[in-house]
């Protein structure tokens, strides 16, 4: 009986927290079907904004920039991060602590400090624009990849690689045949985490972008005062729904992926 009650209470509490986490998302989804442009008036159900979405050049450009940034920065971060993790795991304790200390800086530093520091550095040798934002995103993404891959390297069986080398495989072939498959899970979670962080970033982008380029975040921020275009709600709902479905497949279809590694 007591057990039942405590399980029931746990369920209710879980539901309340989920309600807290998802209520703003629900509000945005409802707004995307609002016939009125106002945020406070309900003007009847419409799918107009979804139709208009793709004729809005500004939004299309911002979406393109956001996705391109997220994709390239996550990809580059995954490559550099993988090599880094392989190297770091072979380091002696002192070097290891030093490098891991530096790796933690972007994670532990406040976004505003990271953004401003990079901006102050960039203006000395390059114009602010897509490339500066890209470099900034790669910079804060690499640590996520390293931290996702390092534990996998520790669990990895290095003797398989040594054996492949002893049997005459080249370093590169041995790597692709024996090491990479063992690290795939960590790499996927690292890449996905980096992609998410880049998509959701506002502060670092805001300080390093200069004029002329907009991601979805900076575009929304600049529209707050004059009113957000309802197309933006529609776009965000589409992105949210797409990722929701993707994650549902990856997480709950048996053997669909290894995203649990994200937390480990």
């Amino acid at each position, binding site marked *: 009986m007591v057990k039942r009650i405590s399980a029931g209470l*746990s*369920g209710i*509490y*879980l539901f309340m*927290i989920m309600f*807290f*986490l*998802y209520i*703003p*998302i629900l*509000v945005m989804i409802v*707004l995307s079907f609002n016939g009125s442009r106002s*945020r*406070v008036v309900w003007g009847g159900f419409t799918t107009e904004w979804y139709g208009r979405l793709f004729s809005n050049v500004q939004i299309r450009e911002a979406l393109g920039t956001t996705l391109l940034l997220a994709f390239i920065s996550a990809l580059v971060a995954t490559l*550099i991060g993988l*090599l*880094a993790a392989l*190297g770091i795991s072979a*380091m002696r304790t002192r*070097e290891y*602590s030093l490098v*891991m200390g530096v790796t*933690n*800086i972007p994670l*532990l*530093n*406040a*976004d*505003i*400090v990271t953004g*401003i520091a*990079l901006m*102050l*550095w960039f203006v*000395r040798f390059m114009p602010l624009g897509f490339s500066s934002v890209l470099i900034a995103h790669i*910079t804060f993404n*690499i640590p*996520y990849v390293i*931290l*996702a891959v390092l534990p996998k390297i520790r669990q990895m069986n290095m003797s398989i690689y040594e054996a492949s080398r002893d049997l005459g495989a080249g*370093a590169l072939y041995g790597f692709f045949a024996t090491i990479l498959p063992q690290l795939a899970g960590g790499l996927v979670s690292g890449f996905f985490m980096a992609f*998410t962080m880049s998509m*959701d970033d*506002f*502060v670092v982008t805001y*300080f390093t972008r200069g004029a002329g380029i907009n991601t979805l*975040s900076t575009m*929304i921020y600049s529209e*707050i005062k004059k009113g*957000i275009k309802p197309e*933006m709600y529609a776009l*965000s709902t589409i992105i*949210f729904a797409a*990722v*929701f479905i993707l*994650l549902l497949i990856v997480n709950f279809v048996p053997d669909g992926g290894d*995203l*649990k590694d*994200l*937390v480990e």
Partner: protein
Amino acid sequence: MNNRRNTRVLLSGPYLLWAVGFTVIPLFVIIRYALTDETGAFTLNNLFAIADPINLKATVFSLEIALMSTMICVLLAYPLVLAFRRLNLSKNRFMLFILILPMWMNFILRILAWQMILSNNGILNFILGKIGIGPLHIANTGLSIMIGVVYDYLPYMVLPIFNAVAEIDEDVIEAARDLGGNSLTVFRKVIFPLSLPGLMSGIIMVFIPSMTEFVIADILGGGKLQLVGNIIEQEFTRSSNWNLGAGLSVALMLFMMVSMAFTMKTDHGYGSDGKAGAVW
């Protein structure tokens, strides 16, 4: 063998260059700005500017918001993690799923949604009005900023604690029960102590960003309530006093490093191997 090990270390070369170029040097650059005036002469005024009445007021307010929010996050996180254990979902991906998914609705839009929920003629007051309560005046207060901060950073508190608790061997808890411990004792003597590393990561991951927040305060504070993050941002976007902005950032960074060193000290044998990253 040793040779191969050295070759492997070389693989981290690109990253080391990157980290020096875009993590270490920028820190020196911002410190340099912080320690000079517009003419380039050495000064400590930019750092001490944090003690100017307006800035100090914003800093203290930020500190209050950050401390309160961090505490609320801790208080919300533990029951959630325990509820997950209770419902046998600890080994499940469900937790990660529900915590990461909201990040795919744009952060600023989510905060704008809170503005609509909490505003004086917003959704919350509309519902409360129907059942004859209110209206509550939450909009543009510290409370509304705090709700936004807790909302945004709760996942960063829950995940590390969840991971630490999920790692606890069921046998250890069984043993505590068999020896006569009730639920409270088991939590106090077993679960809580073993969750401490996660708690420490969580506190750091919530406290630091909430202390330097400016977007949430901008939207939910109605532009009247200023956090120190808002002041720094304005030095760069409106007043264009980069040295002062850098000075305030560095002063804040120093403050957080000191408070973090303090937090780490109070925790036993944890901190040096970069476990803060264990959130992910």
